[in-house]
C-alpha cells in the first residue's frame, strides 16, 4: 500500500473537477468539430452553447451524486490547468465489479501527444486500485483507429463485435467491445508500480 501514490496526476496531465467558469466556453468550441464528435460518441452531432453545457455538467454531477455509477473527470494540463478533454468511468455494476471507460481529447493540437495514454493509465489505476473493479469495457466504432490503438496498447482485447451497429458517414460500421481484466492490468503494469514492489518499499 502506498497511500501517497497520486491517483490524479501523471507526467503531463492531470484529472480534475469541472470548472463551471472556464470549461463551458471551451467545450462549446469543440462541439463544432465534427471529427471530435464522431470519435467521442454515437449521438447525433449537436451544436451546444456554453449555457447548455453548464446544464449538462449539472446533470452529470447530479447523476454522480444520486446514481453512484459514474466518475466523471476533466483532463487538464498539469502546467497551467488548461482543459484538454474529458474522461468517464460509468455504468458501474458494483455487485459484479464491471464498468465502462471512455475519454476524449478535444483540441486536434492536443492529440497524438500521448495525453490519451497518460489519461487511460490513470483511469485504469483508479478503476482497479481505488474502485476495486474486476473488469472494464470500452465501446469503440471500428472507424476510430486512434481509439482502438489507444485501448489496445493499454492491454484491452476485442471481446465482442456488434456487426454493423453504427450508421455513420454513409455506411455501416461494426461496434467493438474491448475489455481488460484486473489481472491482465496487474501483469502489464510497470514493475515499480506492482503491488509487491510497493509493499516491500513501504
Amino acid at each position, binding site marked *: 500500500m502506498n497511500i501517497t501514490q497520486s491517483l490524479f496526476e501523471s507526467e503531463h496531465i492531470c484529472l480534475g473537477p469541472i470548472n463551471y467558469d472556464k470549461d463551458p466556453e471551451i467545450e462549446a468550441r469543440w462541439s463544432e468539430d465534427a471529427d471530435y464528435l464522431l470519435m467521442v460518441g*454515437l449521438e*447525433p452531432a449537436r451544436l451546444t452553447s456554453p449555457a447548455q453545457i453548464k446544464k449538462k455538467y449539472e446533470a452529470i454531477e447530479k447523476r454522480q451524486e444520486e446514481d453512484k455509477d459514474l466518475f466523471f473527470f476533466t483532463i487538464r494540463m498539469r502546467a497551467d490547468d488548461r482543459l484538454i478533454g474529458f474522461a468517464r468511468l460509468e455504468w458501474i*455494476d458494483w*455487485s*459484479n*465489479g*464491471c464498468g465502462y471507460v471512455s475519454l476524449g481529447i478535444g483540441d486536434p493540437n492536443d492529440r497524438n501527444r500521448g495525453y490519451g495514454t497518460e489519461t487511460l493509465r490513470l483511469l485504469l489505476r483508479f478503476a482497479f486500485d481505488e474502485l476495486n473493479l*474486476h*473488469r472494464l*469495457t470500452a465501446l469503440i466504432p471500428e472507424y476510430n483507429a486512434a481509439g482502438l490503438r489507444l485501448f489496445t496498447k493499454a492491454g484491452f482485447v*476485442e*471481446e*465482442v*463485435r*456488434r*456487426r*454493423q*451497429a*453504427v*450508421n455513420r458517414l454513409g455506411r*455501416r460500421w461494426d461496434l467493438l*467491445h474491448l*475489455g481488460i*481484466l484486473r489481472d491482465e492490468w496487474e501483469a502489464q503494469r510497470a514493475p515499480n508500480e506492482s503491488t509487491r514492489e510497493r509493499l516491500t518499499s513501504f
Partner: protein
Amino acid sequence: MMNDLFRGELTRLAAVDAEKMSKAWERWNRDVLFRRLLDNEPPTLWSAKKIQQWIEKELERGDQRFSFSIYPLDSERLIGFVELNVASWQHGNAWVGIGIGEREDWNKGYGTDAMRLVLRYAFDELDLYRVSLGVFAYNPRAIRSYQKAGFVIEGRERGALLRDGERSDVLVMGILHSEWEAQQGAMQEASGG
C-alpha cells in the same frame, strides 16, 4: 389478407396490463433462478404496488420502448414478457429482453415463438437495422432459443458476472434485418409458400 403481427404458432403478444403484470412480477421476482437467468442485478423483492408504478411510468416512454405480455395462443394465462428498447433510431439499433416467468411453461418453445414475433415487429414494423441481446454463458437453454430465432453470437464479455463466488461470461448476440429477411424467405420456401 389477415396479417396478424402479434400472433405466432404457439404464443400471442398482448398489451401490458400494469396491474396483471405487476402481480405476476411480484411472484416471478421470488424465483431466484428466474432472476439469475434474467439479469445481472441482485434480486430485490419489490411490492406489486411499486412494480405497478414502474410499469405505468415505463409504458409512457412509448417512443423508445415497446413492451408486450406473452400469452399462449387462445389462453388468458400471462406467462411472460418481452420488451424491445430502441437504443438509437439514428443507428437503427435495439436491445431485446424476454422472460417466461412461469416455470411450468419453460421448454415448450414459447420463448422462441414470442422472440420471432418481436423480431418481426422490430424489422417489419419499426424497420430497425439490427437487434442485440445479452445472455449469460450459464444459460445454454436461452442461447439455443435465440439461435433458433436467428441470433448469432457476436462475442463474450469475459467474467462480467460474479455469482456464488464464480465468474461467468456475458454473451452478446445480434441479428441483422437482412439475416432475418433471408430466414423468412428460406422458411417460406421450405413450406412451399
